């Protein structure tokens, strides 16, 4: 802890990087997984393709993905996009299933009621299906966010990792405190983000706690 206090500025700096590197992929991945998850919830064939694919993508070691990405998409080796793209892939791999499950769990009679009242598909999705899928989706998003925050550190391999920097440095100088500082930072960030999402989820789904 003393390291954090003594090097507040540096700690703050890596925190900012870490935060950016984890929030961007979460948002992008979440946005991508909504249409994909919707598709999966509708079609068994789509599920049969998307879910195993997500599993396989998820198992590609992050180091490999981070190093290969610039070769594949042709950006500069030190660009943050090299960390962001793999993390987006992981986020989508995690979230497709959550979104699909969440949508599939929307009660059938509610959907039938919406159809019967004359909702057209897009509007129904935006105002009925998706809001009702939110609690489960947000539970998935919490996991994805936390995983992202934890995984960003791998980016230190290419000089980008936020707290990951502290791990490498601490490690090379046999400086446990520095590693701990990064660890604490990561966990605190994750817990805060998790709590924030929990809170947002509650604000967005006031009905979920209505009644008993």
């Amino acid at each position: 802890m003393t390291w954090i206090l003594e090097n507040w500025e540096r700690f703050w700096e890596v925190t900012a990087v870490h935060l950016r590197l984890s929030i961007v992929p979460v948002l992008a991945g979440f946005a991508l997984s909504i249409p994909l998850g919707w598709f999966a919830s509708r079609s068994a064939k789509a599920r049969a393709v998307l879910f195993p694919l997500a599993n396989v993508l998820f198992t590609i070691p992050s180091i490999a993905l981070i190093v290969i990405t610039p070769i594949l998409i042709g950006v500069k080796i030190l660009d943050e996009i090299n960390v962001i793209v793999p993390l987006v892939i992981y986020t989508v791999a995690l979230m497709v299933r959550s979104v699909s499950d969440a949508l599939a769990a929307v009660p059938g009679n509610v959907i039938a009621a919406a159809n019967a009242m004359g909702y057209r598909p897009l509007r129904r999705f935006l105002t009925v299906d998706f809001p009702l899928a939110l609690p489960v989706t947000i539970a998935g998003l919490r996991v994805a966010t936390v995983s992202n925050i934890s995984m960003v550190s791998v980016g230190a391999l290419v000089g980008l990792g936020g707290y990951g920097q502290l791990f490498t440095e601490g490690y090379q100088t046999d400086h446990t405190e520095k590693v701990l500082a990064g660890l604490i930072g990561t966990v605190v960030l994750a817990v805060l983000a998790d709590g924030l999402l929990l809170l947002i989820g509650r604000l967005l789904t006031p009905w979920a706690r209505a009644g008993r």
Partner: protein
Amino acid sequence: MIEFRAVTKRFEDGTIAVDELDLTVEAGTITVFVGPSGCGKTTSLRMVNRMIDPTSGTILVDGRDVLTVDPPTLRRGIGYVIQQAGLFPHRTVLDNVATVPLLSGWDKRRARTRAAELLEIVGLDPAFGKRYPAQLSGGQQQRVGVARALAADPPVLLMDEPFSAVDPVVREDLQNELLRLQAELDKTIVFVTHDIDEALKLGERVAVFRKGGHLAQYAKPQELLSAPANDFVASFVGRDRGYRTLTFLHADVPVHPVATAKLGERITVADWTLVVDEQNRPKGWLSGVDGEVEVGEDDLVSGGSLYDGSSLRGALDAALSSPSALGVVVDDAGAVTGVVKADDVIQALAKARAAGEVPK
């Protein structure tokens, strides 16, 4: 008016849910579809608003073939009350009710005002508007479901076992509420249930379905009771057919005078005497005894059901349930106006039969 013309529905797996259905639902009436589980009631209903499309045949709503109308547009003009209400759990009661007006492009304010009115119409305190469905009891949810279906003032209302999830007491309330509403609103209502009592109570006409999607009989309730088309209908309509037939007969039964007494009075009671309170409302019967007695609470034999002039059924039951075999007749204020006898009811029934008032 809703017309089914040779409508058949065969599902992909080969199940024939509805088989060559021909049936006309008159405008402004409640028509009930009744039948055992899986006989195609829901399927028939859902073909009206195109939640399901028929395999063959035509369905006309007010003369227009539903297949020619874009489904969402069609549905906004047809109220649909789904089993267990099917409310949107994520919207307040008020917003649930306002759904269809908003979909049809009303502005928010007007839709909400209308929704609040509707809550009152279905007998809910407007304060419930701010709650979420999960905060309501089953019966209250059903009312919201009805209000929601009524919101755009559609001429046609489809109701699929709307009251099946509530207990019998609440259910009776809801049924009465529906009858009251219909008397005001005069919609064309198709009501699905598998409870024959509910069907007989609510339906101006009842369609009895049997397994495989066949229409076994389509008739007025009293006709189902007195002249079931076949054994299936007879057994489905169940026992007590004769007794139930009385529900639909409103022939006059002679009201006889009855000896009454007030609590605390000293009287001689030769025969059964009806004890009443200050407002002349029945308290119980005093059986005949020798000599003079003071009328006390403890001597009363409590009393049987009361007859308010509604139907022969009520009259007979009042007589049957009374310890004196005399059914107590009361007026709207609950005051005693006389008594009826079972024999008179049976004669009234015979007279009604002779007059052709009981369908054959």
